[in-house]
């Protein structure tokens, strides 16, 4: 199977790290609200843009921690 360039973001750094993803951002956001708080478009965009930006780099990358909180 051939893959394509992939990136992800997760609120669960511990479990996600175990799977060795090629590119990832990790946050302190909540389960069920992976990209940010409901109604907080600015936060959602920040997480999204930081996660997509990783696609420019060759994989594998060390995961990037984002200072994004659920409250």
């Amino acid at each position: 199977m051939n893959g394509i360039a992939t990136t992800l973001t997760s609120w669960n750094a511990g479990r996600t790290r175990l799977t060795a993803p090629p590119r990832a951002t990790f946050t302190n956001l909540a389960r069920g609200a992976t990209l940010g708080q409901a109604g907080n478009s600015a936060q959602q965009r920040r997480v999204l843009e930081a996660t997509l930006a990783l696609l420019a780099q060759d994989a594998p990358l060390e995961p990037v921690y984002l200072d994004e909180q659920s409250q």
Partner: protein
Amino acid sequence: MEIFEDRDQWLAKFREGWLAHWQETGQFDWKRYPHPKNREAPAGPGLDLSRSRLVLISTAGAYLPGDGQLPFDAPNPLGDYTIRLFPAATALDRLAFAHGHYDPTAVEADPQVLVPLRHLESLAAEGVIGELAPSVISFMGYQPVVTRVVDELIPAILEATDAQQADAALLVPA
């Protein structure tokens, strides 16, 4: 490289531990669950996203009931390994979610917390993303049988990404 390292060892532990306990008692004991581990991450070149087609892959259990799509089998204790496709242009208020393993309050109030289609459209309009793939690939991320993820789910996802000629994927787990 292997998508899932130590597959046979994982399956033996899963069968002897979590699965056997559930079959005997009907109870989930997540302390018995062998979380999958890989040592080697996939390698590959980066790309210029502004010249690429991006596909969104969501584990939120989103589906389109108005188009006759059936919900995922959320109550199934052994998970659901099927996918649904729906247009990236879908109005967010047409989506429904069948998952059962996360609190849906946020996604029901604002679907973009898990399915950021309007944000991705904006990023495409701004030139950050070349274009969005026509369809979102959606599944329900409660899938305790990892061998079924490898044998059933991943081939279906790859078929869908190939059919859309996607260059890159954004995975948003729930």
